[in-house]
C-alpha cells in the first residue's frame, strides 16, 4: 500500500460534504470558542454598561469637584467594559485546548479585537445621551488603553483576575486626576488630541493583544487560578 492509496476514499464512504455543511463546520470552532469564553454573556454586560453610560449622560449624573471629577463616571464605565473584555480571555480547558487548537491564537486575537471594537461602538452610541467630557476620541483612547492593561493582566495573572489591572489603573487615575499629571501613561488625564497619551494607550493595547494572542491567559493550561 502506498501513501497515495490512503488518499482514496474508503469503500463505502459517503460523498463529500456539501458547501453549506462545510461552512457550518468551519463556523463551529469559532462558535464553540466564543461560548467557552462566555462571549454572549459578555456582550450582554457590555450592552448594560453602554446603557449605564447613556443614563449617566442623559440624566447628568456627575461627581462634584471640577472637570476631572466630571469625567470619572464615564471613565469607570469604560474601565468596567475593559475588565469584561479581559475576563473573557479565561479559558476552562487548559492543556487539551492548547495541544489541539492550532487556530487558538487567531481566535484569541479575533475575539479581543472584535470585542474592543463592539464595545467602542456601543459606548460611542451611548454618548449620544449627552455630552461626554473630552468626546469620543478620548473614549476610544481610554477604552483601548485600559483594555490593553486588562489583557496584559490576564496574560500575567489569569483571565479570571484580568479585571484587577483595569480596576487598579482606575484607582491610580483617580488620584492622578486630582493633581496635574504630566506623564502620558495616565492618558485619561491628558487632552483628547494629546499624541503622547494616545501612543501610550495604543502601545499598551498592542502589548496586551500580542500577549494574549501568543500566550493566552495565564490560566489557559499553564497555571491554576487560585481558589
Amino acid at each position, binding site marked *: 500500500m502506498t501513501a497515495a492509496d490512503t488518499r482514496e476514499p474508503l469503500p463505502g464512504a459517503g460523498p463529500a460534504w456539501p458547501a453549506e455543511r462545510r461552512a457550518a463546520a468551519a463556523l463551529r470552532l469559532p462558535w464553540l470558542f466564543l461560548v467557552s469564553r*462566555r462571549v454572549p*454573556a*459578555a456582550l450582554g*454586560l457590555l450592552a448594560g454598561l453602554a446603557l449605564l453610560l447613556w443614563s449617566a449622560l442623559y440624566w447628568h*449624573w*456627575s*461627581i*462634584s*469637584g471640577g472637570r476631572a471629577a466630571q469625567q*470619572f*463616571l464615564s471613565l*469607570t464605565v469604560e*474601565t*468596567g467594559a475593559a*475588565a*469584561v473584555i479581559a*475576563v473573557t480571555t*479565561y479559558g476552562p480547558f487548559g492543556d487539551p485546548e492548547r495541544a489541539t487548537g492550532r487556530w487558538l491564537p487567531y481566535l484569541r486575537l479575533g475575539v479581543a479585537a472584535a470585542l474592543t471594537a463592539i464595545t467602542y461602538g456601543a459606548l460611542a452610541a451611548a454618548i449620544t445621551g449627552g455630552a461626554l467630557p473630552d468626546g469620543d476620541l478620548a473614549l476610544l483612547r481610554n477604552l483601548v488603553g485600559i483594555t490593553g492593561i486588562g489583557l496584559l493582566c490576564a496574560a500575567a*495573572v489569569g*483571565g*479570571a*483576575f484580568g*479585571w*484587577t489591572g483595569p*480596576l*487598579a489603573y*482606575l*484607582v*491610580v487615575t*483617580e*488620584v492622578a486626576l*486630582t493633581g496635574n499629571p504630566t506623564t502620558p501613561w495616565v492618558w485619561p488625564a491628558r487632552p483628547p488630541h494629546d499624541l503622547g497619551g494616545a501612543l501610550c494607550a495604543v502601545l499598551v493595547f498592542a502589548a496586551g493583544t500580542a500577549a494574549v494572542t501568543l500566550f493566552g491567559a495565564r490560566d489557559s493550561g499553564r497555571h491554576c*487560578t*487560585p*481558589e
Partner: protein
Amino acid sequence: MTAATQAPARPVRARASRLAPPLSFLRLLRIELRRNAMPWLLPLIAALFWFDSYRPSTGQPPLYVLRTFWNMGQGHTFIDFGPFVAGVAAWMGSRDGRRRTADLVTGTARPRWTAQLATWGATAIWAIGGYLVCTGVMFAVYAHQGVQGQPPWWWVAVGATAVAAFSAAGFAVGVFWPSRFAAPLAAFGGFLALIMSSQTGFHDNTGWALILPTNSNGNFQADSGLLYPWLPDLPIARIMLLAGIAIAALGLLGLRDRGDGPWLRWLAVAVTAAGVAAAGTAVGLVTTARLSADGIVIPALHDAASDRPFSYTPVCGQAAGIPVCVNPAYRRWLPDVTAALGPVFREVAGLPGAPVRATQVAAVYNGGEAGSTGGQAATIGGRPPVLSLAIGALGLPGAFGATATLFADQLQLLAVHAFVGAGAGVGTSAQQAVQAALWQGAGVAFAAQPQVMSTTGLPTFAQAAAPATGPVYAAARRLAALPAAARQAWLATHLAALRSGQLTLAQLP
C-alpha cells in the same frame, strides 16, 4: 451482618455543644484560609493603598485630622480595599457554581450555609486583616513622623466594617450568580456605588446623606483629636449600617439553600431581618443628627463625656512683647503666629482694648468639608483684653494648598478685624476702612487685600471682599497716609465710637 453495624452508635451531642463552633468548622475555616484568593491580591491592594491613601496625605501638615482627612474622612482607605475585596469575595462565592460542585457538596455533613460562611469568613479575615495591617503601618509611620493629635480610631473601625460589608455583598453576588463575570461585576459595582455616594456626599451635610461612608461634610474637621475628642456618634451609625448590610447579605445565603433544614432557614430569615433592621435603624438615626461645635451629634448615641475638651499646658511665644499661647500640637506654627501678629500688636500698642495676650481656642465645626469652607472670626474680650484665635480653622501652611504667607495674612486680618470691633460680620464702612488701613500697616498692601480675603479658611465676612477701590479704600488710604503718631492719636480718640458702629466714613480723617 458486618462488624460495622454491630458497633455502638455514636451518642448524639448535647444541644449546647452543637451550637458551639465545632472543631470541624474551624478546620474548614483553616482550609479556606489556606486556599483563599484574597492573599494573592493583598500586595496589589497594599501598593494602591500606599499610592492612593498614604502618599497624598503626606502633603498635609502633621496633624492627624488633616493627614487622615483624605484617606479616612473621604473614605479612600476603603475605596482602595472595598472593590477588590468585593471582587475576590464574589469569585470565592461563585466557586461551587462555577465548578458544578454545588450538588456534590450539598450532600456533605456540614450545612451549605455553614460551609459558605466558612468561605466568606476566610475571605473577610484576610481582607480585614490586610486593611488593619495597612492602616496600622500608616499610623505607625505617621507616629514616627511626629504627627500630632489623637488618631481617628472610630473611623478606622468604620473602614474595617466597610471592608466586611463589601466582602459579604460580593460573596452574595458570587453565590447567586456563579459566573466568571461575578467578580468584575461586584468590584465595579462597588466602586461605582462609592463614587456615586460621593456625588451626594460632597453636597449634602444633613439628613440621610450623612450615612454615606464617603461623606466628609461637617464630620471631619479641626480640632477633633487635638483640642477635643473625636465624636463617635456618626461612626457608630455608619458601622451599624455597614454591619447591617453585611449581616443581611450573609442571611440571604441561608435563605437560598433549601436542603439545610427548617430551623436553619428560620435562622437565616432572622439574620436577614436583623441586618435590614440594623441598616434601617442607622439611616433613621442619622436623620436626627445635628451639627455641634465639636462634630455631628446623634442624640440617641451621644455621650456627653465626649464633649469634654482635652486639658493641656499651652506653649507660648512673644509677639512684640505680648505672649502668644497655642496648643502643644500647634507648636510648629508658633513662630509663624508670633511673626504674623507682631506687626499688628506694634500698631495697636497702647490703644484702648489692645490685647495683652493672644491665645488659641478650639475651632468650631461648620457644615462643609475641612479646608473648603469658612473659618472662624477672632475675638478680643476680657479684662485685660485677650485675643482668641481659632488657628485650626485657618489654612495652616501646607494644608489644602495654603502657604505660610497666606497663613500670616489671614491671621493679621482676623486680628485687625477683631480690634475694630466688627465681630462676626463685615462691619460698618468705617470699620472696614480702619481695618484695611491697619492691615496695610501690618504689611498687606491695599491691592493685595481683596485677593487674600477671597481665600478659603477665612470666615464668611471675608467673602464680601470688593476690589480695593471706592470710598472705603479711599478713606483707608487717607488714614494710612497719616503719620504714625497722628494715626495713633486719632484711633485713641475714636476707637470707642468705631467699635460701637457710630462712626461714619466721612468722620475718618
